[in-house]
């Protein structure tokens, strides 16, 4: 893990190399470093962190979606980056509002993000621009809504059996 001053140095370097507005904030919590960037600069930041000498966070371990309800901007996507040589991890995150939840896909840089971005799209409705095949992955194709959002109520979905099929005719269409 980069320590707290190390994280500030990374943030400063990102501001210089990628864009002055790229970094929204940094946080260092429980020995884990997190760099928050704007959705517009996400891809450039990830590419820079991958190639910049001395950083080389060149393995994408995981992508998670998060819903920060009731905070705004509500939706977040986290990218857990890893440098295997130094065994250091760095989390890069973006936050978006529900109305404009679009971010560039990192699949061209990290093919591993393919399934994971589809999962975030499936459960949170975040659209990844430039993803080669963005469609639902775990839920059925005709499912409505994005169930991991915090305002998506659980329960209430009828389970179709032969005996209650007439109550929801045409469900299979």
């Amino acid at each position, binding site marked *: 893990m980069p320590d707290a001053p190390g994280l500030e140095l990374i943030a400063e370097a990102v501001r210089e190399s990628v864009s002055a507005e790229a970094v929204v904030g940094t946080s260092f919590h429980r020995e*884990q470093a997190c760099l928050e960037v704007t959705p517009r600069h996400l891809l450039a930041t990830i590419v820079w962190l991958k190639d910049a000498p001395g950083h080389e966070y060149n*393995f994408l371990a995981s992508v998670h979606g998060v819903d920060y309800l009731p905070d705004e901007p509500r939706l977040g996507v*986290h990218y857990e980056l890893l440098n295997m040589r130094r065994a250091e991890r760095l989390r890069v995150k973006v936050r978006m509002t529900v109305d404009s939840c679009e971010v560039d896909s990192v699949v061209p840089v*990290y*093919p591993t993000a393919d399934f994971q971005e589809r999962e975030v799209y499936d459960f949170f*409705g975040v659209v990844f621009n430039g993803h080669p095949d963005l*469609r639902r992955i*775990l839920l059925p194709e005709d499912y409505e809504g994005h*169930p*991991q959002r915090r305002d998506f109520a659980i329960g209430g979905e009828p389970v179709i059996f032969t005996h209650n099929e007439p109550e929801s005719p045409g469900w299979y269409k």
Partner: protein
Amino acid sequence: MSGGGPLDPLGVSYREREASLTLSTIGEQLQDHRATTQAGTGLAPETELLTLNIGPHHPATHGVLRLLTTLEGEVVRDIKPLIGYVHTGIEKTCEDKSYWKVIPVIERMDYLAYYFNAMAYCMAVERLLDEEVPARAQYLRVIHLELNRIHSHLVWLGTSALDLGAISMFWYCFRERDRILDIFEMTSGQRMHTRYFQIGGVVEDVPVGFAEKVRAFTQEMPTRADQYADLLDRNEIFLQRMKNVCVLDEERLLALGVTGPLLRAAGNPWDLRKATPYSSYDHFEFKIPVGTIGDNYDRYRVRLAEIYESCKIIEQALDGLPEGPHITTNRKVALPPRHELATSMEALIHHFKFVTEGIRVPEGEVYAPIESPRGELGCFVRSDGSSKPARVHMREPSFINLQATADMVKGSYIADLIATLAMMDPVLGGIDR
């Protein structure tokens, strides 16, 4: 666009994109394919491609995995894995349960590595709480994790050999697996999904006779593994189906995010137990088995070698098992011992608060990765300060590793697809969650 519904953002109909390749869409790519791949050389090129659906209910897919394969004769040109048939919404369920009640559901994700799921989750919550786990609990966790690793590898070996036609391996492996389940039953009363790991330690100390039983097992297991190797390594059919089949190099595996035995088979010794030791793994001496070229044979050898190393770790942990509490004494995190409830008012209050409300965890986000039998198993937990997690997400190695299947099997025979799928060791409960 973000409103949900069946509309997709690319504007192409779902069925169209799900459909597999045809000669007209694959075109020139296929010519390159034919030129570079071994399989099918010397045969006349086919004039059309066949799309074949395998699964979801098929014994060789190790669960409900559906593969849409595009074949040119016997040669695989493309596959698309379709998943989600056992999606149960565990991550959503977790958000509705207090922290300690999440453990039973989270164990049911990857049903062969239940201790690992619980470990990743408990580690994440302990990090959020900044709670130290007693040394004895750390050692007991290591013993159970490594037993679980052997158990998972035995199920993998048995079922994979079954896919290749060696039915006796299945019976032998399940015989040893049952002994591990007996040990799990001894410590927690359950054979699978034991809920033995708790936040801050383990639920109970091990009973009398536990060490002897485990030692008897770890002393016998290497001999058994030798016997398995003898059965398989001198079998010409097995070797021909394994060696130099479906090779994928280290660089591509890393780009695809593959970790665990599959990556180590390609020669990269990345193992989180060594790289970033957790739960006292740095106290034990063990080696990381690695392969050389990353074919199916290497994948098999790496996992088999890990069984020996796990036995070594368990024996060292039993030898050095420290005295002390098996769970943290912080009453805000763990239940008070049963005998205190009859005499201590305070213990009764803590017990009541713990059972009714649960633990309040300070706000924050952590990611806790561990080395599961299939690779990096990471648990992301976000807390909003209440007694229920605001988000639990598992980075399931099976889910990520599955993406590498297409790269591995393109240009090989369909029989090799089955062998490779077995060697990937996917667990569909983990993939679909």
